[in-house]
């Protein structure tokens, strides 16, 4: 008669082996990264820049998924329906109850980053350089700084280990003037050749 502990040990071993076998059997279809973006020109443009850049530098296919605003994008990532989204420190900090605004844009970024890691296990990557809307619902630029950055979960980073390194290479490369030019030249991200040209000119791909 098999002892209960022996049965338990064998059961756990089988489960463990199944996990290893299933985990390793990733198809050659390739990994797909889902990026949530809203319909605004800057989200569409930078979303497509990210898609081309990530694909070129990692071989990963990037799928753009639509959401109505950045709060919905964030919810999609929380639910696991998307892997990454582009957010702004302004609306992100205003949606956090009790968080104090930093004295500088960089300080606000640090506070938001810290809050997201502790509360959502999400990591704010380095800011792109341009300023997003201060309030998502007003969709207006004001004299306050609201830094734009890609936000990704720890879980997704474990799955795509070089992703943060790749995306951080765009840090400081897309300021307001560059973004404006990119939105125009790429027709809000639709023209992939213009995006490739932009990345190539800056030696990024």
């Amino acid at each position, binding site marked *: 008669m098999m002892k209960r502990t022996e049965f338990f040990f064998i059961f756990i071993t089988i489960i463990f*082996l199944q996990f*290893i*076998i*299933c985990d*390793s*059997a*990733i*198809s*050659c*279809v390739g990994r797909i990264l889902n990026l949530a973006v809203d319909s605004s020109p800057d989200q569409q443009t930078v979303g497509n820049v990210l898609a081309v850049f990530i694909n070129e*530098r*990692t*071989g990963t296919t990037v799928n753009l998924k639509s959401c109505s605003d950045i709060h919905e994008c964030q919810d999609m990532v929380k639910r696991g329906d998307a892997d990454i989204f582009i957010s702004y420190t302004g609306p992100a900090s205003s949606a956090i109850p009790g968080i104090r605004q930093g004295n500088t844009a960089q300080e606000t970024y640090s506070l938001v980053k810290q809050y997201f890691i502790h509360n959502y296990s999400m990591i704010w990557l380095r800011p792109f350089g341009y300023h997003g809307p201060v309030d998502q619902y007003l969709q207006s630029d004001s004299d306050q700084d609201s830094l734009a950055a890609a936000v990704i979960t720890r879980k997704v980073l474990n799955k795509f*280990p*070089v992703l943060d*390194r*790749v995306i951080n290479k765009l840090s400081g490369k897309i300021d307001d003037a560059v973004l404006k030019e990119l939105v125009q030249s790429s027709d809000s991200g639709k023209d992939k050749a213009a995006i490739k040209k932009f990345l190539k000119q800056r*030696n990024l*791909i």
Partner: protein
Amino acid sequence: MVKLARFFFFVLNVFFLLYSSPAYAVQEINSKTEITSDTVWQGDILLKGDVRINRGATLIILPGTNIRFKKIKDFGPDKLSLDKANHFPRAELIVRGRLIAQGLRDKMITFTSAEKRPSVSDWGAINFIGSRDNILEFCSISYGHTSIHCHSAQVLVSRCRLHDNGVAIGMKNIRGMDIKCAVPVVYNRIWQNGGGILIGGSANSIISHNQITENKFFGIFTKKSGPCCIRFNNIFKNAKGIILYSVPRLILRENNIFDNSDYNISLLEGQEQDVDARYNWWGSTDLKKIRSSIKDASSDKGLGRVRICNFANEPVSGAGRF
């Protein structure tokens, strides 16, 4: 008495031949099917779903055979397996047993789409899983997803023509499987696919004497592969000639790698190891020009360096030659 004995042996021989020879299938139309005993295909074969060669069975395909795959519903009722990790959404020829497809130079075996207007990924793959002693020779393969797909399998791919596929050839090892991937790819012409040859998951391969051209994304992509040997190939007019990601060891020499529109060699993020790429022809003897066609540490400090000293001063003779 002798005559009777001879007659008896004759009957015995006929009986033996009849019952031991494989079944012939001509103009066969299959839905999802399993091949459980040795079988020969010839003529026109239309596959309307997955066909799996089970362990212990061998499928022999005769020269001149034309195998066409219907475009079926993704993971629909004509699929044998819904395991998305190892299978493709559309129809596949799944090889768990053994496949011998040896055409002739003037009588090639064709694997293609059955659609009137064929397009990439109309069908999935010739999907070798945990299988060995397979041969694909003088085959023309088009419009598949990853047309020759090897998971822990051993296949010789020789003198084939692969075009208009998502990826022409893909291979990797699967943890827990006894058989280690070994796929020699020699004397093939691989052109106008999304990607040419994808080597992943510690798979070993010898890529030699192939013509790899006009592939939309890459000619050869090795990611976390085992030791591979890439010699005597012509790799030109692809978007990227060769892409490397996390490849510790590689023999990459005596190839003609030139005129690839993005880069002749591109190291991806994560390829921190240097790459020995001496003795190749890069389409020029101008060092600056050669360097500009290589993405490595010279433009991105986080990457390894591609060593190109002792580059060939003229095209490597004997490379390609399909």
